[in-house]
């Protein structure tokens, strides 16, 4: 699904990623953990195509294609989905209009027919019920007046509707209480399938009690410094990131 090789990236001359390697197979769930500033969010933005980063070395291959040849919206249509850590509010664009426009735009890009309004409404009704989202919420502007939990659930609703192949969840647990976390995790787990891969970025282990990863990677100073199974997350929870912070200092 995804192969990242020796990725170096910087922002305004400041190196953030320094030789990152990562391979995510089809159907696998990988967790990326690490201290603040290790480059976790940068990786998620680079995968989705945000233009603020300079790639100085390395490659990303997605489903066999060079990811850097694809625009932001082409990547989305090809199945890459980033659930944002801080979903922004966009006044004036109704959430429902946005969902329908996004879904149909992706279908058009893929050469499929647009969904009719009744078919779309049926789909939305089904997906919102599962995430405990009130339909009135979708008549509002994107994320405007949504609570922290509602914003995260709205991200997961988009993911459920767009049915991506590679889901990247950037600190989806941040700012959620335990009930909201459970609801979001259930939503994510429903989307797990042998055809769909996931990258779960998190600072804390608690999300991984709900979304059990196949692999866990520790990111520090812009590269993967350790990989292991789900037990690695438990170890990090117990010992913290102190030893990896040291490596960061050494690297710098």
């Amino acid at each position, binding site marked *: 699904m995804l192969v990242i090789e020796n990725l170096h990236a910087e922002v305004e001359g400041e190196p953030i990623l320094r030789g990152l390697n990562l391979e995510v197979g089809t159907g696998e769930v990988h967790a990326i953990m690490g201290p603040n500033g290790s480059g976790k969010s940068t990786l998620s933005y680079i995968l989705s195509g945000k233009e603020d980063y300079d790639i100085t070395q390395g490659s990303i291959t997605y489903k066999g294609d060079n990811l850097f040849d694809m625009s932001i*919206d082409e990547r989305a249509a090809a199945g890459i989905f980033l659930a944002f850590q801080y979903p*922004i509010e966009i006044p*004036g664009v109704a959430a429902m209009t946005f969902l329908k*426009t996004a879904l149909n*735009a992706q279908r058009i890009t893929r050469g499929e027919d647009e969904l009719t309004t009744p078919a779309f409404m049926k789909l939305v009704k089904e997906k919102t019920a599962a995430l405990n989202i009130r339909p009135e919420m979708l008549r509002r502007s994107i994320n405007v007046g949504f609570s922290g939990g509602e914003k995260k659930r709205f991200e997961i609703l988009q993911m459920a509707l767009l049915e991506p192949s590679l889901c990247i969840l950037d600190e989806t647990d941040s700012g959620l209480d335990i009930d909201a976390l459970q609801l979001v995790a259930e939503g994510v787990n429903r989307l797990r399938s042998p055809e769909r891969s996931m990258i779960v970025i998190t600072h804390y282990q608690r999300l991984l009690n709900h979304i059990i990863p196949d692999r866990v990677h520790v990111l520090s100073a812009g590269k993967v410094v350790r990989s292991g199974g789900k037990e690695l997350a438990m170890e990090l929870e117990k010992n913290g990131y102190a030893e990896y912070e040291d490596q960061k200092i050494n690297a710098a």
Partner: protein
Amino acid sequence: MTAAEKTLIDQFGEARENLPGNGEAWMDDARSSAIRTFEKNGLPHRRLERWKYTDLRAMLGQIPAPATGTPVSDLPDHDGINAHTAFASIERYHGVFVNGYFQPQLSNLEDIEGVEIVNLRGNFNNFPDWVKAGLGNTSVFEGNAVLALNTAFAADGIALRIKAGATIDKPIHLDYVTTGDEAATISVRNLIIVEKGAQATLVETFTGPRDVAYVVNAATQITVEEGARFTRIKVQDEGLDAFHLANMQITAGENTRCHDLTLTLGARVSRNEVNVGFSGENADVTIAGASMLAGKQHGDTTLCITHSLPSSNSRQEFKTVLDDYARGIFQGCVIVKPHAQKTDGRQMTQALLLSPNAEMDAKPELEIYADDVECAHGATAGDLDEEYLFYLRARGIPEAKAKALLVAAFVAEPLEKIEHEGLREGLFQLTNAWFDRRKGEA
């Protein structure tokens, strides 16, 4: 005197005997007084503060001849989304004007319950007093050369009286369509009285051909009496070579609610002037608008709200989107006279510039002579938010479509306040289509 000014005076001399009401002393007096005012002042120019950004004397080089009116049996085809088609499926009372002349055979304004209608090409002899008083009022064009020209040349128009206590069940749509390849000057004059406790919604739309430098001079005088509620929506979607010069005057009575919204999409040069006065206390007046301009369009919105009596609210809410070399102008004035205590006046103008070559000039003017008032104003200008764009594109929406959504979202706020669902939807259809339409026409 410039050549254009001389042409106008000559044109009046030739046209006057065929203008409606010729020979009626009160109308003759009004027209003579109007042309004298014009002769004295000429076309407005940049040395006049209210015309600082729109130098009509420099811009209006050619004055097309006044339009001649013939009844038409069909309207030209209107393809796609425009101000003419956007409201076509709404249940409405429809009044069609072609080249400024009312077309009763295409309209259904007859027999609206609670409304008296007078066509200005009717028998001036029999005009009711309220029409004579409105049309014959020469004080309205003092210091306003465009309105003076309108009074001099007005060839047609409609006077509507919404009778006391009447609630008009459907919007009244006055649909001004310009046709033909020959440029002409179109002068329409409307008069509206909303009597005590009445409720009505008026829609005015303007459409016309591309590549014809026609001139529309439209004036509407509105009196809203005690306790009445009145909404007026105007969509200016003229052809892109046209001049559109408009004046609206509203007088709001005690306990009235008046809501005016103008959507400006068309014309090479447009000037939308709104003047509001009060005849009673506790009135609530909103003058709102959205302008979406591209290419070399020049769109001027000039407002003046004069609070001469206490305890009224006024709101000015304007959004302007500018692309390419377009220029937007907002001049908003609020005057609070010494006795107009407890006035609450607010003004906000916001611009979105999509191109480094676009220009917005915003000039708020507050003159406050009373001490117990609340008045506020704000003006912003900025470009498209990159974070918004990224969020939409990250969900698979192509860049152009994402921009179109954000541009429509920027102007949505004043449109959302329109209570009539069909009209609101029609307005959104127009703002949603703007991005694609302008690209197609560029």
